[in-house]
């Protein structure tokens, strides 16, 4: 991994709401992190498309931490880059914010946009982790929206650590998400 990528990893992880994963490993290893109870009643399970935990038989906590850390760097995201444009290839670049103007559907449209922004943001995050982790051999098991938030929102180092423990632990008792 080259130096520039490491630098970007650092800044990207900060933007994702926490520490970079290399730093995350050292910090999290010094912190006792409890694995949450994954026994979620069927009636409380969230949308299977969105709310899941990762698990991989035989993976070590260290490898799972590395995989999660790798994928975590793709979580910071902004408004779509305009084309034509310039990309400082192999250099870090800023996260584009949405234009600070009234949108094409006026103020009402902006209010509606504000309401749906949270779930949309969350689904982009879920999509990114799904697309990055599944090819690395991880299966998904359903969970509740509350537990998903508990293990995803907040400090990145702790989130990665908890999810690594889940990924390397016993097979979750909830249904597997297929495909």
């Amino acid at each position, binding site marked *: *991994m*080259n130096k*520039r*990528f490491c630098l*970007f*990893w650092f*800044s*990207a992880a*900060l*933007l994702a709401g926490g520490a970079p994963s290399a730093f995350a490993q050292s910090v999290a290893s010094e912190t006792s992190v409890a694995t949450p109870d994954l026994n979620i009643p069927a009636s409380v399970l969230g949308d*299977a*498309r*969105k709310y*899941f935990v990762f698990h991989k038989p035989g993976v070590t906590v260290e490898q799972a931490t590395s*995989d999660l850390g*790798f994928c975590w*760097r*793709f979580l*910071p*995201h*902004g*408004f*779509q*880059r*305009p*084309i*034509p*444009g*310039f*990309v*400082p*290839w*192999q*250099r*870090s*670049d*800023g*996260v*584009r*914010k949405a234009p600070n103007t009234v949108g094409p559907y006026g103020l009402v449209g902006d209010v509606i946009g504000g309401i*749906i922004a949270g*779930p*949309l943001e969350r*689904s*982009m995050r*879920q*999509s*990114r982790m*799904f*697309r*990055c982790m*599944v*090819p*690395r*051999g991880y299966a*998904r098991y359903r969970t509740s929206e509350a537990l998903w938030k508990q293990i995803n929102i907040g400090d990145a180092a702790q989130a990665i650590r908890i999810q690594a423990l889940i990924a390397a632990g016993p097979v979750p008792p909830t249904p597997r*998400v*297929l*495909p």
Partner: protein
Amino acid sequence: MTLRAILIVACLALTGIASPACAKIDVDGEFRHIRAGETFQLRPDRAYLLLRIDTTRLPLGPAILRVPDRQEIDAYEMARQAAYAKAGKKAGPLESFSFDYDGRPNLFVLVPKYAFASLGKIVAILAEVTPGDYVIYGTGGTYECLCLGTVGFAAPAGRITDLGTMISDRAWEPSAFPELAGEVDLGPSAVMDYGLYATAVRPLRPCDFLPAGLDPGQISPARFHAVGPFVEPNTMLINRLAPIPGVLAYDNGRVIDVATGAEALPN
């Protein structure tokens, strides 16, 4: 039309069309579609890209990135620092600061509706570009980056580099295209609020459609190589280019350059 469909259309509409902020960029000096009806004349100091897009399922055009040289990077960084200083305290940390750069561009989109020629559902895009090294960067403009693995190629001056055929389909459904095997039928998680699209590039085959008006002697098949993961924060979704036999493969998420057998490391 569902909310999801509206969102996807809106997002795609935002790409491939110059935004007002970019209107002053001299795009023609860097990139130009050669449109149907134009007489093509090859310039020895320019490079040309020929790409067929199979629109049977989706009419998505790829974003292509020209690898910038040192001077371009420096010019961008200087402009960024100046914009950051001008923005003052509200700008936040420099690492996350973004701005509208009106310097020399290096990211373009090959737009299906600006085809040079077409045959049934296959449209052929011909673009005049600056000679250099390029990366197939995204799908649907910057709707989706190919951040988890893609390919690069060289586009030399005075030649038409033939990229073969690009194919896209919905990643959440099965697909009839064998080139997309393993990248589709991913299930409902690939279509939450935004749909994920699978993309493949099928290198040039002898039977592929060649637009009239092009001299076969001026055409060279692209020599692709694997490009490792890269971070592009300014897209809706992330994905990877489908494996290409002899060129691009994946091993537990690692990008493999098949020709050398080595991992294409993260950029």
